[in-house]
């Protein structure tokens, strides 16, 4: 959405202001600790979500028309919705779904983007122009609009949401990898490989790609958060997964009908779930950037 910005550029800068060793240590420690905590939270959430059918007394689709719209209680931790379904159980189910959508769509986007970026950066010329022109055009569209368009053409549903969100990720990966490739292909090390008779494919994937992988992994992590946001936005405006499926954006969207009637819990908990999940992915991404991105280390 409005957050293209989060472009890796923001983080790739070296930080070398003079500072005390202690504050440096504290900074690293806090960042790492935060990342660790975030990763741990995500892991726990995923595990609980996976185990939910055996732990929770309610399934996400179990309806109870005698007990609709009830406020949070000891039995229903997050209350029930308009069909009397347990909101907590639905949120856990939504966690599985959102992580799945986020992970798969970014993986697809990354694979396509990385290959396109590698080819464009390595071969240059018209191939580069075309890839970058297409990336420009894709960038010229507000991301959510692009996603709306794709879902509108393909129809709503899980697969199509994944495709829509994946397309949205491609140009950014392509740009990152391209710029990395442009720098790396001139290095003596690649020159040496070429002189030794390595094929283009080998050079690209064995010698250049690993150099840019750090940035890709960092961006990958952050992108999952953004993709989850986009997917939930799509559901929120009614273009996401089938509405009966317990998905966070869809839950928020139907829940808002009851907001004016004072039923805040229908929108509060799904929104909180989205927020915390995306937050954790972003913090994890920041931490990974610290640890992985070679450009970050003072050399």
């Amino acid at each position: 959405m409005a957050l293209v910005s989060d472009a890796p550029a923001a983080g790739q800068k070296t930080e070398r202001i003079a500072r005390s060793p202690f504050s440096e240590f504290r900074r690293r420690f806090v960042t790492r600790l935060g990342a660790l905590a975030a990763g741990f939270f995500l892991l726990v959430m995923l595990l609980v979500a996976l185990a939910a059918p055996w732990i929770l007394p309610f399934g996400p689709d179990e309806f109870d028309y005698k007990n609709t719209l009830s406020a949070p209680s000891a039995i229903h931790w997050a209350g029930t919705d308009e069909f009397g379904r347990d909101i907590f159980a639905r949120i856990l189910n939504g966690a599985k779904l959102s992580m799945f959508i986020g992970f798969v769509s970014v993986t697809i986007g990354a694979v396509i983007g990385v290959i396109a970026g590698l080819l464009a950066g390595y071969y240059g010329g018209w191939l580069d122009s075309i890839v970058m022109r297409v990336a420009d055009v894709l960038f010229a569209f507000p991301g959510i609009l692009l996603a709306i368009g794709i879902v509108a053409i393909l129809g709503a549903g899980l697969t199509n949401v994944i495709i829509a969100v994946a397309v949205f990720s491609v140009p950014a990966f392509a740009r990152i990898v391209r710029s990395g490739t442009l720098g790396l292909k001139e290095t003596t090390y690649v020159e040496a490989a070429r002189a030794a008779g390595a094929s283009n494919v080998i050079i690209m994937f064995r010698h250049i790609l690993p150099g840019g992988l750090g940035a890709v992994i960092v961006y990958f992590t952050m992108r999952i958060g953004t993709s989850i946001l986009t997917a939930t936005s799509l559901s929120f405006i009614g273009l996401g997964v089938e509405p009966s499926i317990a998905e966070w954006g869809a839950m928020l969207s139907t829940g808002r009908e009851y907001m004016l009637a004072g039923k805040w819990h229908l929108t509060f908990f799904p929104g909180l779930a989205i927020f915390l999940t995306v937050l954790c992915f972003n913090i994890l991404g920041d931490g990974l950037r610290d640890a992985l991105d070679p450009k970050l280390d003072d050399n």
Partner: protein
Amino acid sequence: MLQYFLRRLAALVPVLFLISIFVFLFIHALPGDPARLLAGESATQEEVEAIRKALNLDRPLFAQYVDFLKNLATGNLGISLRTGEPVATMIGRAFMPTFWLSVCALAWSVVFGLVAGVVSAVRRGSAGDHAGMFLAVSGISMPNFWLGLLLMQFFSVHLGWLGTSGFDEPSDLILPSITLGAGVAAVMARFTRSAVIDVAREDFIRTARAKGLRERIVIWKHALRNALIPVVTMAGLQFGFLLGGSIVVEKVFRWPGLGSLLLDAINFRDYAVVQAEIMLFSLQFLLINLAVDMLYGFINPAIRYK
């Protein structure tokens, strides 16, 4: 510089042409039939055909595309299939609300983001820095439709201080612009912080510091000035996305702007409006990019235009 500007402007034409093809194909690939919609669910087949003919929707696709281009070249955006109004009028009406919303959102978020970013950069490693940056990550992670709903629930429904929706008076701008700007403020803060830190290690800053200038002057005057280039870029890019990307926020607050117009038009298969609006968004985005590039020159005269 003027020459450079004109050349850049001319380079936009092929991109726009590409986009026009893309847009046209996109809109015609959508399932849905405007003639049928106009006629209503209980209309008969003959009524639908009559409407289709009247709207020129029975012509071959290519001919329709040529019409579209011709009209575009003469500045005619066409007639809305839904309301029969000129599209330009509808966009004109929807533009100002979105413009105001974007300007307000950008204004507070840039100011807030800049200050927070610089302060964090100066006090690196302090508790304040950590808190600020945590807040910034939170802002990026916040689903803006949820933030909007929370604000609305609290300030409009619970306290009854502000209207829930629509744009009738200036105070209606408050909640939507906070919602829309939150993410931008967070991005700006993070970005400014790293830009300032980045600049701070440049030689001229070291020199300034070595000359014994006060740290405050070094940071605010020298470092910030140079950090401003990437920051302006980022702000410009954000503005483009605010104008075009406020669709979800407009939906939450029922804002009578371009985003709502677009969602309505997509829902109604109002081809003329969707085409015109997407072209407008793209043009706007490209122009903002150009403007950002030009601004560089004013901030840092060292940049040469080739």
